[in-house]
């Protein structure tokens, strides 16, 4: 149960997120009307995230930058089709980045080596994580650290590497149903953690 101060923080962050979303939607509306400036605002806000996702998926800077380009050109083309009731702008862009990265992964001639649980770490890079608020990040990392290794591995393989649940099951030597369950439980824990810390909705 979060303390009062935490709840107040959470509420103010939640308001901040609402404002961010409203600003994002205004930008996207501008993009739909052909504004380069609006696209640039979205780019400034989310290009780092898109690049981070692509880099984590592809482990290749050049390809990751191409993904950034593809994603924002796609944002330009599809802005009018964005449906606010189904996703936040951030979620929409983020999933587009994932999708573009995985498309590239799949196009690569040789499938990347399947990795085992021992190869995966929660922060799969030696670079600094994105969160600018160190304290908040620490709390979240701790909360997310409560995820079992299998949950984290399943999520990471599914989200960043584009593995199907069957492929994850093969990689981890588990039944497919178990992987499905890992993913769901992982998501529930994430939501709880984000909800408490004000990262999620």
């Amino acid at each position, binding site marked *: 149960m979060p303390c009062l101060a935490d709840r107040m923080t959470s509420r103010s962050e939640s308001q901040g997120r609402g404002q961010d979303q409203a600003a994002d939607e205004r930008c996207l509306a501008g993009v739909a009307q052909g504004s380069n400036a609006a696209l640039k605002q979205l780019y400034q806000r989310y290009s780092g995230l898109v690049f981070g996702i692509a880099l984590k998926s592809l482990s290749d800077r050049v390809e990751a*930058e191409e993904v*950034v*380009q593809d994603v924002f050109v796609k944002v330009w083309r599809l802005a009018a089709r964005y449906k606010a009731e189904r996703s936040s702008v951030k979620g929409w862009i983020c999933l587009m980045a994932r*999708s573009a990265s995985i498309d590239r992964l799949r196009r690569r001639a040789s499938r990347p080596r399947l990795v085992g649980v021992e190869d995966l770490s929660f922060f799969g890079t030696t670079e600094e994580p994105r*969160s600018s608020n160190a304290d908040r990040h620490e709390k979240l990392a701790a909360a997310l650290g409560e995820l079992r290794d299998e949950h984290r591995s399943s999520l990471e393989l599914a989200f960043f590497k*584009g593995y199907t649940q069957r492929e994850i099951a093969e990689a981890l030597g588990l039944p497919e149903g178990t992987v499905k369950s890992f*993913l*769901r439980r992982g*998501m529930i824990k994430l939501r709880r953690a984000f909800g408490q810390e004000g990262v999620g909705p």
Partner: protein
Amino acid sequence: MSMQECIDYLLGEMDERRRTRFERRLKRDSALANELRRCSEDLASYADMVVADVRPSDEVWERIEIEVDDAKIEEAPSSPLWIWMRSKTVWLGTAAALLLLLNFAQWLNRPSGAPQSAPSKDREEGSGLIVQESLSPRSETPLIDAVEVELRRLRERVNSLDGMVASAIESDIDRQRRIRELQRERRRLESQIEYLEDNYMELLAVAEPLLQEGFAGERRLLELVSGDRAAPGEDGQVSGIWTRAEELLGDRMVAVLSTSSFSLSATGNADRLFRPDSALAEGFEQAIVTAPPSEDIRAGSPEPYALAFMNEAEGLGLVSFGNLPRLPADQRMMIWGSGEDGAGYAPIGELPTGIGGLTNVVMRLPGEAEVTDRLVVTVESAGADLPDQPRGRVLLETREP
């Protein structure tokens, strides 16, 4: 269950059939849409936490802008209304509407006794009838409005494209290169002008010691002539000046020591320097070119001297004086010119008094060409009328051959 479905949907686990069914449900099930939204936000937050704090290079945005601008141009004519307008049906409809308008106008202009409701034979047959059935008069205005709106939109788009084309032309690589070349050439010329102007003074400074030596010793004058008439000097020292002058001014002006004549030819450099900027009046005016103070150069050398630059074609001359004496108020310095025949001098003008040091004076020569052959500077009485010929003490004069 709905969360699992959302995860499957977002992570691409659904096959085509399942996905279509899921998307159909999304349209009518707001709870499912909400759950999908939450799941997508959870995943985005998860990614935001997990990925490194990295930024793409600046070039990425430039590439996006280029691609987006290209896409704008490509997509310009493909708006739904444009496609709709290009369809045959629409044009048939538009033509029909126009016919209807025509018929309506004819009906308004009908003879007053004609029954209003009776359709004409024309409208009962052929396209008139089709028009009446497919488009009622009420639908004409919206159609025309829509066309107007679309026309306006297209015109705006054309204007916007014009702007883009203009911008593209501006950024055209060849043109940019040409502009850069011209700018570089301009800078080069400006630098050359500046160099020549600056070093023109240096040339004078280099020549002065020799000139001074000439007056003090061999009574030689330094003459500047055009390049094609120039010849190397008589000795090593003069050759040195020659070389230095060439270095400074290239083929525009050379210095040569003359032992015989004060008759000087103008040079392009002299023209450029003197003519445009000097407001010449009768007599003398101080030149625009200012020399360094004589004390620095002439220390211990009280002898007056002069260096003349003449432009006979233009009737202009510049005389560079050094160590002119300061005269009492009742005296003045006059400069005179004469031709080769020795028939006498003609007055050119009065030198400013008290100028001292090294001073350049621009003068307009008298009309007779021969006056430039010899020059003499004399000290005359200030109070009296100017004599016809020099009578006072000779301060400077062209050396006899």
